[in-house]
């Protein structure tokens, strides 16, 4: 699927401008962005549901720009289900097949097939309002699946479900994709969902592509401070710092509370530093002093929140490193934090773009070994 030079506006406001995108066949492609970033707009212009100002859309090498939505060989799942309330589940799912005059027994076979896959066989004769949210969404997905389209468009299909159901559906969507190997374009604003599902993620902000890549690429090399804060749970710590040239490498002044020495040379001056919570550890006495705030226990690790000055810092401490007396810490008590070896990201203060990504601590050891 190819999008070329797509421009969409509402009134005077341009939502997408000269937008280009290429999505491979069979890819599970997730568009991730915060509210109002233009995700729905993008999806709806692919579906042909809103008029576009300029640009072309190709699906399977066909130019579908001027085709009616149903002629584009797509199926769509909507955020609020959008089932036909006055039709039974069976009719909801089979409507499209009826419209294209498929023989009745063939329709029945197909509907039963997808109902089976999605475990809604026992609901086929009910009406949407007799179903729970999760069941309704399954019907919505069934309605899309039954048509065998070349692209599935899904607009935050899980955002109306509770956490447990959402987890379940994540698994089912993924396994559905493994089975059919069809292109799925999936919109969401939840990074966990995106990481769990995607082959590739596009991070959208204000109608512009911020970064695009596999979940691992985005996690390991966030190209922009927006992505850095968005991908990863708990989110990355973003701290102000100042870089000064040093005898061998660079000395980083972290909020005037401590120094970090790195071997790489980076441009001097003020910038943002990104540290994943996982590479922040507890130190005995040296290290950066911080006042303890609270912690959240997940069983596998604890997420400690502490304050350096008024800046809140998250540290994820693996189980084996949790100090025995953690529960005795009082709010406000002084503790010491250190940076463990790992990736540290530096971002330009005004543009937010990456300046340099360095392996803190690791390269230094290798050098010593030389």
């Amino acid at each position, binding site marked *: 699927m190819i999008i070329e030079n797509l421009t969409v506006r509402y009134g005077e406001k341009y939502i997408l401008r000269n937008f280009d995108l290429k999505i491979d066949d069979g890819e599970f492609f997730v568009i991730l962005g915060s509210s109002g970033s233009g995700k729905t707009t993008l999806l*709806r212009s692919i579906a042909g*549901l809103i008029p576009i100002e300029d640009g072309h859309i190709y699906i399977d090498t066909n130019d579908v720009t001027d085709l009616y939505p*149903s002629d584009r060989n797509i199926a769509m799942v*909507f955020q609020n*289900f*959008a*089932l036909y*309330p006055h039709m039974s589940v069976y009719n909801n799912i089979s*409507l499209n097949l009826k*419209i294209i005059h498929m023989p009745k027994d063939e329709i029945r076979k197909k509907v039963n097939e997808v109902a089976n896959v999605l475990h809604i066989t026992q609901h086929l004769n009910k009406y949407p309002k007799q179903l729970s949210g999760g069941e309704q969404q399954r019907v919505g997905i069934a309605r899309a699946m039954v048509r065998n389209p070349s692209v599935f468009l899904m607009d935050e299909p899980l955002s109306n479900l509770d956490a447990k159901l959402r987890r379940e559906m994540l698994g089912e969507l993924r396994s559905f994709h493994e089975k059919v190997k069809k292109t799925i374009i999936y919109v969401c604003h939840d990074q966990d969902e995106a990481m769990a599902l995607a082959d590739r993620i596009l991070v959208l902000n204000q109608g512009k592509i911020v970064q695009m890549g596999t979940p691992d690429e985005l996690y390991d090399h966030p190209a922009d401070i927006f992505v850095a804060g968005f991908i990863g749970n708990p989110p990355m710590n973003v701290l102000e710092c100042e870089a000064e040239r040093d005898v061998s490498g660079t000395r980083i002044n972290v909020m005037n509370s401590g120094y970090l020495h790195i071997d790489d040379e980076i441009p001097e001056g003020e910038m943002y530093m990104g540290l994943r919570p996982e590479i922040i550890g507890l130190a005995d006495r040296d290290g950066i002093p911080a006042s303890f705030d609270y912690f959240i226990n997940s069983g596998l690790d604890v997420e400690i929140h502490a304050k350096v000055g008024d800046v809140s810092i998250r540290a994820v401490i693996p189980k084996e490193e949790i100090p025995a007396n953690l529960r005795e810490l009082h709010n406000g008590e002084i503790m010491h934090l250190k940076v463990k070896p790992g990736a540290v990201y530096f971002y330009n203060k005004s543009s937010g773009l990456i300046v340099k990504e360095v392996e803190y601590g690791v390269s230094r050891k290798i050098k010593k070994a030389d």
Partner: protein
Amino acid sequence: MLRSEYRRRKSINVGENSKTYLIYVVSILLAIVYLVPFYWTVVKAFRDSIFANFPPNMNLFSQTSVAYFLANLKTVWGFGDFPLWYFNSVFISICVVAGSVFVGMLSGYAFARLKFPGRDYMFYAVLATLMIPFPVISIASYVFMLDLNWLSTYQGLILPQIASALDVFIMRQYFLTIPEEVELAAKIDGMKPWQIFFRVSAPMAKPAIAAATIFSFIGSWNNFLWPLMEVHSLNMFTLPLVLNFFKGANGTQIYWNQMMTVNILTMIPTIVIFVVFEKYFIRGISMNYTR
């Protein structure tokens, strides 16, 4: 401290309770005020005497008999062209309801969903006509019908009542509350806009259709002024005009029992319509689509 908290709660409860009582008492009083005339209507239709006494005799069992009612019914039904007049009323109301609800649906949908220049201004213009009482434009309508040579015709009675701003308003407001996504889904399923309207949007708007049906039926069924101006020949009379006949030859003596019998006959269709559509009615006038 606990005790004072308890007292405070209790006093709130007492306050709530007396409020509830008050609401009940007022509701019951209102219901009685509305029901008494109906009660008297029914009782009077079962009496022989044409006179109305003051204070009215409200005793259900004094001077009443089914035989009297049947006799009244027979007199009324045989009076003039009563069956034809009844038919006129029914026929005109059905046409007005069907027409105005249909027009209201189409234009309400257009005002809610379609995009065209000046849409909202046009809607406000339609809405503004609600503020104009019918008597103000009745003369103009009359002259219009006169020019068309439509006086004393069905079309002359029906057509002016079909343009109902109220129905347009009810339908538009309701369509606005239906999530647009359902219609988009229908587009993807391959329905053309015309089919989307009839097979998806309109069925979802049943409550609003019910409300519009009831309102326009009552409006047309009870309409007195327009038929009074429009109709110049006896065979086009409608029931509200017919009621007038029971004032007697020179209007000095009202035949109350017969008039009340006509009233009962007149009420039947209204009650039927209400019972049939009542299920949807409340949802319709609250103008809110709920799944």
